């Protein structure tokens, strides 16, 4: 299912410490919510059938596991602290002697991806705008903005880039609309 392998990955104790604390808080909230749940005594149900039983147990498990994660992270942080700079959470520059890559561009790009995808699903779909139009706008803007670098490297003018993006947008919008409405017989949002 996954190929993530912790053996080769650098751990991030500080991140794990925060994550552990968040899981403990989440587990505690579940347990409290489960504890406060109606036990349906007026229905004289078997006490082992109360609706809060399983969520409560799972909440407690999350608290315990979150605590283990936080404690493990704390131990790793201490070990890293005692080994001086260059520990697991130290900036790459101190380990390699080189400046770490500037993450701003990547963050800006991911913010754009989030904005476009969430904007399409939450604002353009199901709010009165025809599906085909919303999809055309989304695909065109997405390709227009995020494929810009590659297009520039290919030496294409801005107008040409946007025309290409609009062709992809129109094509995909028409294909999906026709396929869903006429082949899959789905009423589109």
């Amino acid at each position, binding site marked *: 299912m996954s190929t993530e*392998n912790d053996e080769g990955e650098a751990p991030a104790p500080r991140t794990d410490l925060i994550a552990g604390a968040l899981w403990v808080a989440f587990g505690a909230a579940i347990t409290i919510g489960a504890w406060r749940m109606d036990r349906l005594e007026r229905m004289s149900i078997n006490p082992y059938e109360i609706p809060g039983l399983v969520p409560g147990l799972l909440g407690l498990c*999350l608290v315990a596991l*979150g605590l283990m994660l936080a404690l493990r992270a704390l131990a790793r942080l201490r070990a890293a602290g005692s080994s001086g700079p260059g520990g697991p959470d130290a900036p790459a520059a101190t380990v390699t002697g080189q400046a770490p890559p500037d993450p701003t561009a990547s963050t800006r790009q991911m913010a754009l991806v989030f904005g476009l995808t969430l904007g399409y699903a939450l604002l353009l779909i199901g709010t009165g705008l025809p599906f085909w139009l919303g999809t055309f706008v989304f695909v065109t803007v997405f390709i227009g903005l995020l494929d810009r670098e590659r297009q520039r490297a290919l030496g294409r003018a801005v107008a040409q880039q946007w025309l290409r993006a609009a062709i992809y947008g129109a094509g995909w919008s028409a294909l999906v609309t026709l396929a869903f409405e006429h082949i899959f017989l789905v009423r589109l*949002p």
Partner: protein
Amino acid sequence: MFSGLVAFGQSLASFMTPESVFFALASSLVGVIIGALPGLTATMGVALMTTLTIKLPSSQALLILICTYVGAIYGGSRSAILLNIPGTPASAASCLDGYALARQGHAGRAMGIATSGSVLGTLIGMFFLALFTPVLGDVALKFGAYEFFWLAIFGVIISATLTGGDALKGWITGIAGLFIATIGQDGIHAYERFAFGNRDLAGGFSLVPALVGAFGFAEVLVAMKERRPVPRVNPFDSVIPKIRDVFQYWRTIIRSGVIGTFVGIVPGVGEDVAAWSSYAAAKRASKEKEKFGKGSVEGLMAAETGDNACVPGAMIPVLTLQIPGSAPAAVLLAAMLIHGVKPGPMIMVESPQFVYDVVAMMLIATLGILIYGLTLTKLLVQVLKVPTTLIVPMIFVLCVVGTYALAQRLFDVWTMLLFGVLGFLLRQYRFPVAPLVLGIVLGDLMEKNLRRGLVLSDGDLTPFFTRPISAALFGIIALVVVLRIPAVRRRLPWSGA
């Protein structure tokens, strides 16, 4: 035995209609393309296709999903060999020798080996699927509430432990998945839990939108974060498999097929573990150990046979126990339930023909990958050159419209978004997503059987630990958990400490 063959023949004949053949060929191609594109996985392909086939008859919808699944697992080998990037996690082991062969100018031969290994692996797995499903179905009839409770816990714990990564984080996401399954009306008294007065949430999160989010939208986000430049693919030789490669390594093929199938049967483990296990076993047994990692035909054959044999293997627990053997199998299980097919211990009693239908679907899918493996290499190379920025918006549109198509409600789209963002964040902080999904799938089974078991025993926990199958499952779970404790691991004789 003979009646089984007749039933299989009947199933196969039922799919020999022009419509079914077209669906099988088209979905195998979609699967191969999805698998070949780095960043898009078989789970995502099957989840997306589930949403697209919702209106089709169940037999055709499931044929499409199985062809997509088999095609995607096979398709991953293309980018592994040509680009040294596994198209799906299942093909990671194929990079080692596949890419080495490609660099030596034998990319075509490597693709031929991948095709023959994948086809033979699926056939071996298919044989065991037909053989073991009735047997395991009989054993499953002995399962009661206590055994099913432990089986659900076993699936989540094993998935979190064996799929690589941090087991503790896997257990956390697995438990979180089990909790998510409890949101909405409970299955016994219809009491609303954690719905906060929201009518949609009272119905709980639907499984398919959650899966499309966790494996579709999240993978789209990851693909954009790790944007790769458009690759340059070197020219390659003939892709026709060499009979010599198959005959020379027949022992490796059979061994890898058996390993892949058995890894598939273990709940929640999946194709990547099957490929690595087969590869490791082949290396241990090989007379040419030194060639492994440097372009070993045997290594590539083992990895490709193992991961494809896992696909039918993963279907065995789905059919007999309603427990998925891998992430794509979890989606397939959800699709079966949506289409009114009810797998589980009673399957060999209520609808034994369905088991042979699945075996026939596997065979058709195998033929699909064989056809595309021999003919469509140039097209697949072109597909690999399509930039991520063009594919991503198109796939996201399918994620949105596909989840909406399930029940025509926007709540499912929001569910997809929520699980997509959650899946992306979990991946970024190295929390495995597969146990979360398995937890959501198994949550209902776990809860109902825990409560049922407690009512039956009047609160006595003893039967959970004393009935033979329960005790065995609990023992394995306890062993797996204890062995992950660092202090215990350090004391083990093979730890090297």
